[in-house]
């Protein structure tokens, strides 16, 4: 290989390295800022490396032992839970590789209901979400109830309180004569079956007598 050719190869290598380097830096967000697995505290004595995982594993500390004073209801002061725990990612890096935000733990052990975090007044724009279907799709999944479910759980509470619009007592407002049966079949039997009480699907005769 002649010197010239060698030099050309070197230029190419340098260029490739630079491009790969820039791409790696540009494509990856700066991970060090948000929700670290460990926290590094600088002090005048010895610097301290705080490890989330060993504290939760070896000392059985929950997140709330250090974070969030739920008892004082952060709602007012704190913008909302979602401002930190973004909707794009339910990953909680502090929990380690693949650690997910766990709804069940939060509802069961910390006594939070969904609305403690969700459906909050947004002080930035001064509004609450206007359209239910901006978030709630036709069918729900593990984390987001479907449109109908969410209405039955969520919206109806306020409607009841203010006595305006569709309420529990008045299924007909929404589910017209024909639709009421559909509604019942789709919706109500689910709970009835789970509770093993009242009319269930397997027992058509319980309602639809000859």
């Amino acid at each position, binding site marked *: 290989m002649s010197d010239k050719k060698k030099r050309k190869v*070197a230029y190419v290598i*340098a260029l490739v390295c*630079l491009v790969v380097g820039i791409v790696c830096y540009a494509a*990856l967000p700066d991970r060090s800022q948000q929700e670290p*697995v*460990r926290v590094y505290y600088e002090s005048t004595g010895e610097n301290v490396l705080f490890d989330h995982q060993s504290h939760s594993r070896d000392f059985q500390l929950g997140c709330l032992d250090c974070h969030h004073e739920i008892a004082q209801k952060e709602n007012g002061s704190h913008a909302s839970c979602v401002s930190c725990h973004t909707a794009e990612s339910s990953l909680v890096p502090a929990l380690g590789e693949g650690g997910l935000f766990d709804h069940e733990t939060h509802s069961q052990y910390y006594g939070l209901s969904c609305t403690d975090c969700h459906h909050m007044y947004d002080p930035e724009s001064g509004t609450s979400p206007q359209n239910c279907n901006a978030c709630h799709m036709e069918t729900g999944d593990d984390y987001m109830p479907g449109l109908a479910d969410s209405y039955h759980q969520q919206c109806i509470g306020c409607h009841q309180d203010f006595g305006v619009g569709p309420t529990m007592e008045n299924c007909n407002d929404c589910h017209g004569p024909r639709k009421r049966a559909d509604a019942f079949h789709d919706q109500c039997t689910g709970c009835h079956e789970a509770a093993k009480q009242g009319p269930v699907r397997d027992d058509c005769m319980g309602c639809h007598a000859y």
Partner: protein
Amino acid sequence: MPDRKKLTVSYAPFWHDGSSISTKQYHIIAATMLAVIAGLLRYGAPALGVLSLSVGSAMVWEYLMNLATRRPVSIADGNAALIGLLFGMLLPAVTPWWVVIVGTLVAVVIGKQIYGGIGGNPFNPVAVAYAILMISWPIYLDFNAALVNYSFDFPAAYPLVLMNAYGAGGIEAFSLTDFLMGRQTGGIGATFGLGLIVGGIYLMARGFIRWEIAVSFLAGIFVSALCFNLYDPEAFASPGVHLLTGFSLIGAFFLATEDSSSPVNFIPMLIYGALGGVLTVLIRNQGAHVDGVIYAILIINLINPIIDKIRPKATGRVMYHA
């Protein structure tokens, strides 16, 4: 009676065996690959970013310096790439881009080119750059601080910090196999002990690095760490730990053996390496710094010209008072 065989050479013309500066550099680069790949697998894309930026920017600085000093462009000899690669291997996987670029600037320009380029530098350029950055931005080179976002299946604290703070007890959670297999935090290419050893043995066997330096460096670490350990096993970790943590291996095989800053004669090489190892352990066990390898290498670079005066006696010498 002098050994006459030593003086026997064949008749001219002599043959060139084809080996050159660039061959040597590329072999050394190849020898780092095991450790580099292990680092990339452990730390993923950010580590790739650091390494490629480091290699690329080192070559760019070399090129710019060639232009500025109006000398032939020398990036094809692979030395700049090797400097960049070794420097990148010492850094934590999450290092800001400008730290990498300033580091290679210091390594290539201040460490090497202002002394006239390859072969002229009195200090190892990589060690110079790392030391200067350590003075300027210690927080970015602190492995504990830099790697907070990584989740590992082993304790994530830098072993040398634990040793420094808690003595030998601090690293009870690790075994020597952990260190050997790279199950410890540290520089991108400095943690996988086995890979570094394999690469080092390859280089020594092929004669690309002088085994005397590498072996005596490691022996220096081993013996001095053993002394400390025997004196107080509670406070000072065992020699094996010292050999496999921090920059010990990468320092012994790749930094201390750098050509122009290390001696060429047999006994000086042994002294040079052994002194480096002893200083490393002294700085680690008695000094305020966490790792001593970089400073130890700079110090032995400094004494290199003096100890290299110890050389074989010439067989025929001029008699002044005959």
